[in-house]
């Protein structure tokens, strides 16, 4: 079967996407879960162990506290409370920590340090898997067993004020609530006033059992101006006074009730030195956790240093404190100081309950749980505990009892620690089988692509895909059999759960067939290469292709970039790599251009010399073809001169100047958005523009950018789409004005900030209109053959529709990125690629490199935290999953997509050779699959690296997403190519 190289590449990328999905599924395992029963209260609480005599304690112990207030301050770092800032701005809290009836801890939050997974960890006590970060964009209701659900089931009345995320996680759990959205990050007073205004009423009423307050202001200040901003101090003082208010109110109420109250002050995650969070630096991970209650007596002069604990420990403690069963999936251990004041029997009872729960979880997640040291310790302490109970019930000497009790308690605490540790480690278990299968698919595809380079990039741009050759079909069946055997063995013997085994047999069989078919294709391609290689080696002397400096740079750059992915710093600072490569590319182009302009004659001379040589040789019949190809190559080697000489004065100057203009543009863009880690805190233009003081400047810049976008895009559109484009861009400005980012000159005050839904939908209409016109033109060009211009216009219209969408979704200070990308595309197309006659492969790689660099110019990075989620809400009333996901993905990858679509429209407008598009598609597929495959292998080998969750995994998700988008682009390429061949 013969396939065009474009089609072939598109198929390859699609298969590769499948492989990557399988790999990702194996790499991000489902977190530790107890699947035995999601219904609560299904099983009775474990009775107190006893040896011989039976204990009368079989029910859950009663609650320790009557009321619990949880005050969660978003992004509260440990040194904001325990450090110098705390002493300065939070005097009351410091007093409580140092002298009051309280226990303070430094709770370690596990990365990803993002709000939703942290709330989950606090309330369920389990460790949300990494994949939960991705679901952070979505936050469905929490189905897992958790403290809130338990409390509700026990008839407790819960009130909540604060971040909306809680209401999404716990719908219908609160008797009263008021959510504040964290949508507008620049607002840091209103979000907190929304919480505090309910406080007095709620405290006075007192008809609740649990009150949860989530303050967002501190986090917003961190995001906007960093942890050293003076606003932080003010916010901390505000929080301190709120804490004092709650505490005094709780104390005054306590006189009426028998049980003491509990006040918990905690943070969900910290704040890095740049003010963001998400990764695993010390500043982001360490949060304060303070338990305040009159039950915690303290002798004067008793100095307690904050102990280091895990964030997950809170869930178990809260459950015990409220007299609830501990959440099933909790991996935390009870915070022992909280129950220290209780009698020994109760202490042991609580510890026993916690240990039983952890041991049960271990039993369900680890097949070989009996060998775990924690489990053995648990068994020993349970036995000791039983003995102790017997002694207790027999009413022995109290001192003996106490000594034995302390021993049992120590045993329990050790067991808890070990169990908790081994359970936390379970999260990082990889599903190796799925990973291996995915990797095999990806690698086979890459090998196939690499082996078919010579054929695919030949003039015909076609390649032979052998499907039915008998030998290979034998090989196919053999491989298939072997693979199925392996699958059966692995899946029946594997003790751990494995995603690939949980697939249906039919699907698994399909994947097996795919793998074997790919293997056959690879083998046949290999044999072909060998056969061809022998043929080629005969006339190798003539066919050694000349590598230009540009080709060398492209090759070295690609390989170097892939190698750099092995170092975590290079992943964090990947933008630097791309900026560096793009600058070098510009200089190389510059060198090319200058040589061609100033030394044009030399090349001519060489060519004529070569011609003479060839035609003067003795065997013209045989050498004719070679000579022809050699001349062709020479033509390629010095392709510039004839056309460059023909250029008129102005154009020649533009050609000479354009690399420098592009370099300057890139340098400007570089200072627009600082990304990465090391230099992210540097001041940049984007932050300056986004601050509310410079709204006028931002408005002027945005308006100017929109005008320039229009002038750059409109020149090749049809009249209808020109009008639509103009109206659409006007709509973009109106949308930004409506949501309060920019100002209209006639309306100075920004009173009514709406969500701008009407304006955004107005723009969507034009986007769809332009895309529709473009598609119509393309279809027309397919039906009415030979109308070449219609097709060019159609492609350009699709491109301009995408530009309009990008303009709508990108943040207003990022509009210059869009403008400069359009400008660079225009310059490159007009003054570099066209006059220098680069071939399709080179142009594709350059487009790809620029696309990558612009991806980072937009402010993206390899950290999940930089994804602009607000793009998913443009023009939508509420969160609608699929459009929001699509819009967010498009906004993130807008620049790579725009560069790719510019590539399509540029190549098809330059109708120099029919195979250009399929060459481009093939190159695009190859240049994307190479880093993906290499990265998959790298990540597999680095899976126990310290930074695997904070640096390598987010990058893996980015790579996967980018591959998916590449697949879409390649399919689009192929579709365009198909229309091309038909017309």
């Amino acid at each position, binding site marked *: 079967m013969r396939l065009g190289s474009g089609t072939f590449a598109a198929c390859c990328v699609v298969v590769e996407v499948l492989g990557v999905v399988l790999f990702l599924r194996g790499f991000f395992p489902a977190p530790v879960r107890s699947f035995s029963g999601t219904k609560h209260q299904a099983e009775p609480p474990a009775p107190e162990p006893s040896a011989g005599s039976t204990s009368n304690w079989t029910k859950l112990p009663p609650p320790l506290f009557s009321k619990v207030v949880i005050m969660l301050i978003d992004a509260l770092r440990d040194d904001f409370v325990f450090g110098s800032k705390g002493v300065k701005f939070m005097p009351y809290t410091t007093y409580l920590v140092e002298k009051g009836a309280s226990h303070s801890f430094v709770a370690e939050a596990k990365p990803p340090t993002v709000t939703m997974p942290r709330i989950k960890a606090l309330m369920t006590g389990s460790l949300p898997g990494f994949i939960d970060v991705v679901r952070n964009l979505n936050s469905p209701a929490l189905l897992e067993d958790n403290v809130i659900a338990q409390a509700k089931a026990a008839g407790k009345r819960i009130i909540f004020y604060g971040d909306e995320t809680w209401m999404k996680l716990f719908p219908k759990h609160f008797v009263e609530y008021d959510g504040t959205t964290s949508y507008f990050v620049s607002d840091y007073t209103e979000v907190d006033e929304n919480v505090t205004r309910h406080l007095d009423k709620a405290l006075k009423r007192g008809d609740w059992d649990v009150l949860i307050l989530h303050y967002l202001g501190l986090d917003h200040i961190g995001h906007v101006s960093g942890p050293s901003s003076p606003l932080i101090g003010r916010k901390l003082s505000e929080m301190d006074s709120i804490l004092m208010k709650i505490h005094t109110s709780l104390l005054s109420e306590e006189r009426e009730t028998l049980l003491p109250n509990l006040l918990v002050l905690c943070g969900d995650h910290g704040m890095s030195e740049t003010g963001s969070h998400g990764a695993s630096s010390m500043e982001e991970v360490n949060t304060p956790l303070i338990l305040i209650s009159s039950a915690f007596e303290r002798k004067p002069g008793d100095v307690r240093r904050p102990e280091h604990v895990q964030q997950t420990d809170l869930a178990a403690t809260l459950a015990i404190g409220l007299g609830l069963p501990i959440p099933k999936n909790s991996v935390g251990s009870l915070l022992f100081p909280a129950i220290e004041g209780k009698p020994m029997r109760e202490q042991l009872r609580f510890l026993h309950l916690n240990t039983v729960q952890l041991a049960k979880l271990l039993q369900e997640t680890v097949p070989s749980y009996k060998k775990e040291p924690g489990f053995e310790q648990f068994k020993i302490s349970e036995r000791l505990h039983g003995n102790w109970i017997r002694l207790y019930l027999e009413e022995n000497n109290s001192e003996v009892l106490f000594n034995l009790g302390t021993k049992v308690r120590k045993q329990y605490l050790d067991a808890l620690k070990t169990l908790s540790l081994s359970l936390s480690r379970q999260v990082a278990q990889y599903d190796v089988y799925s990973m291996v299968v995915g990797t095999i698919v990806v690698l086979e595809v890459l090998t196939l692509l690499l082996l078919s380079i010579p054929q695919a990039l030949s003039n015909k741009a076609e390649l032979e895909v052998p499907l039915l050759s008998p030998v290979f079909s034998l090989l196919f069946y053999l491989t298939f059999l072997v693979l199925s055997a392996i699958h059966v063995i692995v899946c029946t013997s594997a003790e751990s759960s494995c995603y690939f085994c949980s697939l249906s047999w039919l699907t698994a069989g399909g994947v097996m067939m795919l793998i074997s078919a790919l293997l056959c294709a690879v083998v046949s391609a290999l044999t072909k290469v060998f056969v061809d290689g022998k043929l080629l080696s005969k006339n190798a002397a003539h066919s050694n292709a000349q590598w230009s400096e540009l080709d060398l740079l492209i090759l070295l750059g690609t390989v170097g970039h892939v190698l*750099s992915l092995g*170092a*975590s*710093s*290079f992943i*964090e*600072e990947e933008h*630097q790599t791309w*900026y*560096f490569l793009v*600058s*070098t590319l510009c*200089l190389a182009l510059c*060198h090319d251009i*200058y*040589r061609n302009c*100033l*030394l044009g004659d*030399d090349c001519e001379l*060489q060519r004529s010399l070569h011609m003479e040589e060839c035609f003067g040789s003795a065997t013209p019949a045989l050498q004719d073809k070679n000579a022809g190809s050699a001349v062709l190559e020479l033509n390629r080697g010095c392709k510039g001169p004839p056309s460059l000489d023909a250029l008129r004065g102005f154009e020649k100057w533009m050609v000479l100047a354009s690399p420098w203009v592009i*370099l*300057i543009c*890139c*340098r400007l863009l*570089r200072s627009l958005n600082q990304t*990465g880690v*090391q230099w992210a805190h540097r001041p940049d233009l984007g932050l300056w523009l986004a601050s509310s003081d410079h709204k006028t400047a931002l408005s002027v810049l945005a308006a100017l950018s929109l005008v320039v976008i229009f002038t750059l895009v409109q020149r090749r559109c049809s009249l209808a789409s020109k009008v639509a484009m103009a109206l659409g861009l006007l709509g973009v400005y109106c949308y930004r004005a409506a949501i309060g980012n920019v100002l209209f000159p006639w309306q100075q005050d920004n009173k009514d900030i709406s969500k701008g839904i009407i304006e955004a939908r107005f723009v969507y209409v034009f986007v769809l209109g332009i895309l529709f016109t473009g598609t119509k033109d393309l279809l027309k060009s397919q039906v009415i053959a030979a109308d070449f211009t219609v097709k060019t216009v159609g492609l350009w219209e699709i491109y301009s529709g995408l530009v309009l969408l990008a303009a709508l979704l990108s943040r207003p200070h990022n509009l210059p990125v869009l403008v400069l990308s359009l400008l660079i595309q225009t310059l490159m197309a007009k003054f570099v690629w066209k006059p220098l006659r680069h071939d399709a492969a080179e142009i594709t790689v350059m487009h790809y490199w620029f696309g990558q660099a612009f991806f980072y110019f937009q402010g993206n990075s390899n950290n999940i935290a930089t994804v602009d989620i607000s793009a998913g809400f443009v023009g939508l009333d509420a969160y609608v999953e699929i459009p929001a996901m699509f819009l967010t993905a498009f906004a993130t990858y807008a620049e790579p997509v725009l560069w790719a679509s510019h590539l399509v429209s540029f190549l098809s407008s330059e109708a120099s050779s029919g195979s250009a598009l399929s060459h481009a598609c093939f190159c695009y597929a190859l240049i994307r699959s190479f880093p993906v495959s290499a990265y998959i292998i790298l990540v597999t080998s680095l899976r126990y690296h310290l930074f695997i969750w904070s640096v390598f995994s987010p990058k893996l998700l980015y790579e996967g997403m980018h591959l998916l988008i590449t697949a879409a682009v390649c399919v689009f390429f192929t579709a365009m190519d198909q229309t091309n061949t038909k017309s």
Partner: protein
Amino acid sequence: MKDTDIKRLLYTHLLCIFSIILSIFIPSLFLENFSILETHLTWLCICSVCVTAVNLVLYLVVKPNASSRRSSLSYKVTRFLKCCIYFLMSCFSFHIIFVLYGAPLIELVLETFLFAVTLSTFTTVPCLCLLGPNIKAWLRVFSRNGVTSVWENSLQITTISSFVGTWLGAFPIPLDWERPWQVWPISCTLGATFGYVAGLVISPLWIYWNRKQLTYKNN
């Protein structure tokens, strides 16, 4: 003819390398607290002065351009002045290129500029000595198959290796090792120096090994 040329080339290159080594060790005898990393700027100045001086002296002694005919004093003076202007221009253009590559615009201006000067002494000064202020000749030498003598060939190799060294020298900057030499522009200057030295070592050897294949138009 060719072999003697290569020998002379080797000796001059050894002298250049020697001057760089001297610039590292001699100043510590006269200056207190001198080290490449701590007092980097001083070293940059000394190194560039040394290399320039050695290059000029070698050029006057060896006279690789056999064809340069006698000419009047005024011609020589204008030529020298032109060379100076070219040198300054190359310093500024290197500075601009560094900024375009992402060097900070305002902070560390002196460091960036001295780095530009150093790189110019490694690349532009030998070019000026050998080719004179003649852009066409420069472009000819730095394009494929454009060299016409052993000297030009070695010039091509050393210049390109200095550039490549500088280019590679930028790579350690983003790494989080927190070493003193990772600070801009130290790693780049070190890279440039290593590249230059490597070029000086490699070029005579490479030319010697490939002397059969190398044919120059004029020889």
